[in-house]
């Protein structure tokens, strides 16, 4: 029995649908398409798959996906809570299952009609009173109804405390938009952005402008996770999982951890950093590229600090015109990210992490030995380090 998750599993298959503003098909249809594509990409057949993991938010249950795709016997299936915070958690479940022998080949997936169906941030209501419903009720009556409004409160304080400005946020958005120009599946492909475009975009929740916020999209994305040995036989170089963890911190709430001492930091991300670096036996200097969860630009600045790429409050100096681009110190979200590829709840960012290791990113940097990927910011979250075989 392994005592650490280091090198116990690998991402061997990537599957995704077209990302769009109106898929015209059901979420289950998107899920089955992405899952099947991930299985075939790994050189396997549906009957080889014995585990499925998705988000609690996902509307396509594991057995529904299995019936459609032709997956038969399953020995492991699971769902992870907390919106975009779940993305890396899915991989964590799969790696634990593969490492312990609970399953051999696990597909993790997320598919949503995020634009044409149920949209995010339209308030929360429900018939049955749950602790979650009461949690949101401390914010909804006061008009804090959207993810942008919750993150804006934290961003305002962070920027005030450390002197970060809109220009610093703009560098994150503009770099990722530039990356999307080489990614035909990116929603923002063909729509480059300048600093003037960014500054002219309207205020959503101060200090956040429209271009600080990710989009809403329809689409599905899936990953096949198996043992490094089995992955060797596949058609693509596997992305070996060097470290993976979930992380929640004292005083954690879902998006509204407003009652902790320091609102200008991300303690759950600092916890995730400590654990994945330890597992992988690596540090920030060993990381060649990142896929930071990027629903909002200030989240990228705060994660640069949480993962030790710079000191507390120094991200504004780290983020320059090209530091996060293909030839910069830390290429970030080379597919465009949630901001400019699509909002597939962060699973598409993990897929890009695996592509960077394969060498098949639309913006492939010269040297990529290790990639760091994170999931949702402001929620119980997780982090993942991928490496070459």
């Amino acid at each position: 029995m392994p005592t650490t998750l280091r090198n116990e599993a690998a991402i061997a298959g990537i599957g995704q649908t077209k990302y769009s503003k109106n898929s015209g098909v059901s979420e289950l249809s998107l899920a089955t398409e992405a899952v099947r594509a991930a299985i075939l990409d790994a050189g396997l057949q549906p009957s080889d798959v014995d585990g499925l993991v998705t988000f609690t938010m996902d509307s396509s249950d594991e057995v529904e996906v299995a019936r459609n795709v032709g997956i038969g016997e399953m020995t492991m299936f699971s769902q992870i809570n907390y919106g975009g915070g779940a993305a890396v958690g899915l991989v964590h479940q799969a790696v634990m299952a593969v490492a312990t022998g609970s399953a051999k080949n696990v597909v993790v997936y997320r598919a949503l009609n995020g634009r044409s169906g149920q949209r995010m941030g339209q308030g929360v209501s429900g018939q049955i009173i749950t602790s979650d419903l009461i949690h949101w009720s401390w914010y909804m009556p006061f008009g804090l109804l959207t993810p942008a409004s919750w993150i804006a409160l934290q961003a305002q304080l962070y920027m005030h405390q450390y002197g970060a400005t809109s220009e610093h946020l703009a560098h994150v958005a503009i770099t990722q938009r530039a990356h999307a120009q080489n990614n035909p599946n990116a929603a923002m492909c063909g729509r480059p952005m300048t600093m003037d475009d960014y500054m002219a975009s309207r205020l959503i929740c101060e200090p956040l402008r429209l271009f600080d916020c990710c989009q809403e999209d329809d689409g599905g994305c899936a990953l096949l996770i198996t043992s490094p040995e089995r992955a060797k036989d596949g058609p693509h170089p596997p992305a070996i999982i060097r470290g993976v963890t979930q992380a929640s911190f004292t005083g954690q709430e879902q998006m509204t951890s407003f009652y902790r001492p320091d609102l200008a930091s991300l303690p759950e991300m600092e916890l995730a950093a400590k654990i994945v670096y330890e597992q992988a036996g690596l540090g920030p200097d060993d990381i060649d590229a990142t896929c930071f969860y990027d629903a909002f630009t200030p989240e990228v600045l705060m994660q640069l600090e949480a993962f030790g790429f710079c000191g507390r409050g120094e991200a504004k100096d780290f983020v320059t015109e090209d530091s996060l681009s293909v030839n910069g110190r830390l290429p970030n979200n080379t597919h465009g990210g949630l901001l400019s590829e699509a909002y597939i709840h962060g699973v598409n960012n993990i897929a890009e992490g695996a592509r960077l290791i394969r060498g098949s990113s639309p913006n492939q940097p010269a040297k990529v030995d290790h990639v760091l990927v994170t999931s949702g910011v402001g929620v119980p979250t997780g982090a993942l380090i991928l490496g070459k075989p």
Partner: protein
Amino acid sequence: MNEEQKKAFEAELRAYVGKAIGPPVVARDPVNLPMIRQWCDAMGETHPAYSDEGAGETLHGQVVAPPTMLQAWIMEGWAMHEGYDEPRDEQHRLHKLLTEAGYTGVLGTNTEEHYDRYLKLGDVVTAVTTIDEISEEKATGAGIGYFVTTRTVFEDQEGESLGWMSFRVLKFKPPAGQQAAASGDEAAISTAPTRMKPPAGHDNAWWWQKIADEDVLPIQRCADCQKLRHPPRPMCDACGSQRFDSVAASGRGTVHTFTVIHYPQVPGYDYPLVSIIVDLEEGERMVSTLVDCKPEDCRIGLPVAVVIHEDEDGFKIPFFRPAG
């Protein structure tokens, strides 16, 4: 209600379970063609078994009544609307008991019917209704309340069973500020969209109620170790106690951080909306709205004071304005 009063109240409720609400109700008219015809007209029902023109050809060989009419034969008409102020039967008494304890809202939730045979012309229906079940107190989307289920058993003139019906209603406490709407006082129901209201759950309803009743800003306090906590929740993370009371905050504090919300603009709120996190003098933090202040004048560190705001529909909510 304290714990003992609650116990006594629930014992009084439970005494109703199993009681017939009154003597058997005998149909005012035997099963007859005009009433069947009227029912079918109203429902758009055209099956020949229910009409004297086609019934002979059906397997019944004669006119029968639609099964779903079962309850209609024993309905007492307009008299049903009376009795809730001056109870005439045990069901009225039970509802009055709940209403007087604050469970003023009523909501039909579900009904189930079972039929033993078709009714023929001339059958005389008799019904006995009993109070079948009263649930534990439940927290629902409408408010905290009790589900009350009645069961009505139908028999014919020979005492043979015709079927039964169960009917469940929720008697609930409408959340603070929504009493008027729930009691059906139409004059008080505003048609303008209003802010999203908090659901009234066990862990939070008391906080909103205290604001509504006393015009104060309450902070939850552990009744054992006295630690303050906000937002309210059931257990003290310092000592594990679930006993709590509250203190009235001074209402003074400073803005810890804020955002000015421009988009999306949701009906029921004023925009641009200045949302703030306040450091209360007592040491707790809370989320609120800044009023009486231009958005551009809001800043981190701004001293603020609480003001209990009342919406047009009577809902009260603690806001803050610049102090001094």
